[in-house]
Each structure stands twice: as structure tokens, then as C-alpha cells.
């Protein structure tokens, strides 16, 4: 138990020391910078790529697929229940 206490104390000091080192720029955290910069996202915002503007047509098609088959789920749209037999 005593060992646990001192182990915790040491690790606390280590963590704070490394934070201090990082803050002073002595050690750099590898930063995951977005590899597609925000100003490079014009094509992803194109009309053709936007997933959907008219929401109901897609939802209705999804509803038909779900009613006319046994599978449901994992399509990104949800609705309510119905007695659609």
C-alpha cells in the first residue's frame, strides 16, 4: 500500500512536469492537424455531394424499403412505427 502511495505521488509529479515542459515548448505533442484544411473543403460542400436537401423523398423511399422487406436500420434516417403491413 505504501508503494502505491509513492507510485501515485511520483506519477503525479511526472505528469505535471511533462505538462510544464510542453507548455514551455521544450517538448511538442504530435498534433493531428486536419489533413484537409477548412479552406480546401469547397468540393465536399458542392450541391452534388451534399447528402440531401429535400429530406422527405429520401425518407419516404427508405420507408418503402423498410416496409417491403425485413431489414431495417443503419441507413442514417429514422422515423416512427407504423402498422404498415
Amino acid at each position: 500500500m505504501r508503494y502505491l502511495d509513492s507510485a501515485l505521488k511520483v506519477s503525479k509529479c511526472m505528469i505535471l512536469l511533462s505538462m510544464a515542459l510542453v507548455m514551455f515548448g521544450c517538448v511538442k505533442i504530435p498534433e493531428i492537424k486536419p489533413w484537409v484544411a477548412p479552406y480546401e473543403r469547397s468540393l465536399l460542400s458542392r450541391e452534388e455531394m451534399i447528402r440531401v436537401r429535400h429530406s422527405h423523398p429520401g425518407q419516404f423511399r427508405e420507408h418503402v424499403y423498410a416496409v417491403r422487406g425485413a431489414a431495417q436500420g443503419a441507413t442514417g434516417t429514422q422515423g416512427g412505427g407504423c402498422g404498415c403491413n
Partner: protein
Amino acid sequence: MESVIRFLNVVVSIVFLAFSWSCFAITLPKDKAEATYHYYDGGGVEVSGPALFVRKSVADTVSVTASYYVDAVTSASIDVETYASPYEEDRTEYSVSADYVENDAKITVAYVNSEESDYESDTIHFDYQEEFFGGLTTASLGYSSGSDDVLSNTSDFKDFADHEFYRLGLSQVLTPVFLIRANYEHVSDKGFLGSPYRKSVVNGVLFDENLPRTRRSDAFSFGADYFIETWSAAIKAQYRYFSDTWDVKADDFRLSVTKSLRSHWIIEGWVRYYGQTSASFYQDQFSSIFQYRSRDKELSDFDSYSLGIGFEYLIEDTDWLKEPSFAIGSEWIRYQYNDFYQYQNGDFNQNNNKRLYEFDATIIYVSFSTGF
């Protein structure tokens, strides 16, 4: 002085993600109004109706949505033709929802109520979405709970059906023109999961169907969206695999191409293949009375193929309307059953005069949508 500067540098780069409120942090969904007319005709069933939808932001960080949807159903389906009478029915669905956005996260809560003369359903949905890595990664979690009352127009029948849905989703931007998506959904159903009208057939005789009172299912889907700059076209593909405790396994492939034509027009074409294997207790005709039995063709082994086309016309902004547009589209679907038969004159003893059932269905929609 230099160390303070370096310190500030590190602080700014560490916290920018947490404090960005930008195009690629999650933004509140745009204000929108939409009116659609939808139509389905297939296998003797006709469904049509309007759908109206309005979304408005009510504060910097909150937007609310209300929608109204009606299905007017006229059914003379094969089951109806065989052992029931054609019917007409209206199903009305109301839903309200709210989105709350804070930094890179969005919480959505929704309530949906659906009513028809023999079925009432209340469902609530909770969804949480968060963006990471400068908006390149979006992760989402969702939970829904539905509570249904199952009734009958032809008897005093009353029972319940409860549903729980658990969702996980991830989407990742890989390059300036390519993103991929993965989704998982688990559904758990309890209660009366069949139809009080549908019959199973045992040795040529009609019996009520009897389905298990529980069902659990898992569905996984993977998708990719790719933009081809030289064609001004986006290609989107998706595959979904479904499997449940009733032994049904289904595959679903979709491919669509969306292209802009000139200014103002966008055309979309898509194909879909869906195939499923039958539930363990499905049979077209049973040789004896099994505890669980169903002749629901939607639980049988079948394939379906669709082909669809849609057009969107983008209208110029006006004083009141932002990005208004019209959309019209149609999908043709062929259903081919591998173990569900159509019997001549509806006589189940006619084993020599039966053929595998198949039918074509058409979906048509016309929609107007605008921001404001």
C-alpha cells in the same frame, strides 16, 4: 517574454478545436420549409399523400422542427386478394424535434406519433453528434424507444409492440473529394410483431399466423462519397448487411450518381439491389401446425432491384426565400419472391397452378424546399 509567447502559442493550438464555431464545426441546421407529395403503387397497394416540414432556429443554438405526414392507403394486395377484402385507410404522422448545438457537438431530441385506425405508435429519439480533427471526423450515437398499440379493424384485438433502437455512426473525410461512412444499428422488439389480419397456410387451410414475441437485429452499413471534379459529379455507394434472431439475413447495395447540368439543374440516377433470406418460421405452406408460423412475404426469401432518377431545379434566391428548389423523382422497383407463391383463384390446394410471385412497384415524388 519568449517563453510566454511560446506558452500562448501552444495554448492556442491546443484549444482551437474546442472553441471553433465555424463552417466545419457543427452548425445549427438551416431554417427550412418543405412540402412534398409522395406516391407508391405496387402489388395492388397504392399509397399517396403530402408531407410538410418546417424547421426554424429559435435561439443561437437551438432549432425546432415540426412535420406532418399522411399516407392514404388503398390496398388490394396479394394477401388481401387471397383471403381478405380491399380496404382504404389513412395513416397520419406528426413529429416534433429540437436540435441543440454547442461547439462541435449537436444533440437532437425528437418525438414521432403515428396513427391509423388499427395502429398507434409513439416513438422518441435521442441523437448525439460530435466532430473531431477540424471537422473531418463526425461520430454519432443514437437511441430510440417506440411504444405501439396494435389493434384490428375487424375484431376486438388489442396488443402492444415495443421497440428499442441503438445507433452508432462514423463519417470520415479522407481527401478534399472523398469521404467514407460507417453505421451500426441494433434493434430490439417485444410484443405482437405480426399482423392480426395475415394468415399462414397449413395444408391448404388458412390459420392465423403466429410470430415470436421478441426479435433482435443488427445492421452494419458502409458507404463512400466521391466527387469527380472533371465531370462535376458525385458518386455515392453504400452496402448494408442485416441479420436478426429470426434468421433473416439481408444484403443491400446502392449506387448513385449526382451531377449538375448547366446552372440550376441537378440530375441524380441510382440503382439498388436488395436480397434477403427467409425467417426460420416462414413457409409458403406448412405441412403441420408449427408454434411459430408466418406466410408474410416480407419475411420470405426474395430479391428486389430498383432503378431511380431524380431532378432538382435550383431557383434564384428572393427576398423571402433562400436556396429554393423543386425536386421530382421516380423509382421503379421489381420484387421477385423465391418462396412465396401466387395460387390460381387463391386456392392453396392448387399446387400445380401456382407460380412464384413477383411485382413491380413505382415511387414518385414531387417536392418544394426552401430556406428562409
